């Protein structure tokens, strides 16, 4: 009887770990980090941003959680601006990301 109980407990633990593995939450959502996708130097897609701090045709500064993102280049265009996503087109030369903590 006792052996049977121990066996059951072991099974439960195994099941739990498997469950957690399945429900593994991606880091960008768990830590609220931006996901930045770049296509060569032509296109930049930023998901999970917090707003635009500065916008000129050669410099864009975008707020992200606990920091900001600086993009430098030429003829920068905000192709698509949505509540959680920004698409930037243009000739991108430099990206600087500053996240504190």
């Amino acid at each position, binding site marked *: 009887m006792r052996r049977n109980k121990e066996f059951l407990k072991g099974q439960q633990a195994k099941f739990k770990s498997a469950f957690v593995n399945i429900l593994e939450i991606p880091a960008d959502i768990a830590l609220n980090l931006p996901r930045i996708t770049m296509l060569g130097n032509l296109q930049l897609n930023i998901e999970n941003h917090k*707003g635009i701090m500065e916008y000129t045709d050669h410099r864009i500064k975008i707020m992200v959680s606990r920091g900001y993102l600086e993009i430098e280049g030429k003829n920068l*265009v905000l192709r698509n*601006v949505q*509540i959680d996503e920004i698409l930037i087109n243009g000739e991108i030369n430099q990206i600087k990301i500053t996240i504190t903590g």
Partner: protein
Amino acid sequence: MKKLLHYLMGYVSITIKGDGVERFINYAIQRGIHIWDIHWKKDGTVKARVQLSYLKPLRHVARKSRCRFKITGRVGLPFQIKHIKRRKTLALGAMMFMITLYLLSSFVFFIEVTSQEPVKYINSQMVKRLAAEKGVAVGRPKWLMDFKETEKHLLNNIPQLTWVAISAKGTKVEIEIVEKIMPEPGERDKSPGNVVAFKDGVITQILVMKGQPRVQPGDTVSKGEVLISGLVLPGGEGTPAEGQPISGQPEPVKADGIVRARVWYRGYGECPLVEREKIFTGQSTRALSLFLGDKEISLWGPEKSPYALGTSETVTKKINPGRSKFSPVEIVCKTYREQKVIEKNRGAEGAWNQAVQNALMMVKQQIPSQAKIVKQEVKPIEESGTGIKRALVIIETEEEIGKFLPIE
């Protein structure tokens, strides 16, 4: 897809002036306003595009961010509709154009008579006139035309027409005709030929229309003999005298004439005095057996016919498919039917009549319908105790035996 949606909903281009464009954009985003294609202009303003329906909330955004924006361009279906609404005459004109085009295309402007082969006897003007009688005419709408009826009318009224089809191709009605192929007038007369006998017989009458007779009434001719020759020898029409030298070339003509002759036909018939006939009694038995390779296994029913006199019918069915490597398995179904013999006594008179009738039937099949029966003779053939009556029928007819045969 998104572009199409934008077009359908309509969007405007705006130029944003003032400091804090970023703020303007941030506020817009927070309000859920979809804004795209934001770019700097050379003159220090920012251009962007916004959906038409978001224009009102954007004014609040502008006030809040202390920016000003100006609409510089309008794109999309709502604006075009507005545009068209303003120019009603233009829209009406377009509609009128469409309606006129449709109406005009439903009228017939041309009627064409075509034929695969060159037309010889049929006048296309006549075809058009007859078609017009039934309503297929230039200037009438297509929906008032009944092509089937017109086709019938044309076929009934033009005897040289074999086939006609009327079809509409746009504003053109095509009448396709096929002419009857008629023999060329005089074509048959040109080819020379003889009149030959196609039956054996004795000539009774000969009437020559063209050519030279080779036989005289009373002559016996056999099948294939020339009766009227198509080669007319110079020196007048008539039988050339024997021994007379032929001068000049014979002239070929198409021989024509009527040659009547006596022809004999004979037919034979017989009938037994007592006739035996097998008839089914209605009794039957079925048997089922299985063939395994070359072995027969009787499943049910008798293997051999249980009746002394009868027929058996066999139906075989293969069980395994044709290309099997195993030996074929077959089910054989046999049906046995009982028969019995009944005797029918006709008597001497009855048998004789039947024999004559059989003989007549046989002989009548050979006689052509145009023949005139001159004499009919029935002869009994002596029986020698066989119990069978035999009859011979000889029919003499007078008929035409001449047939035209061209000279090769």
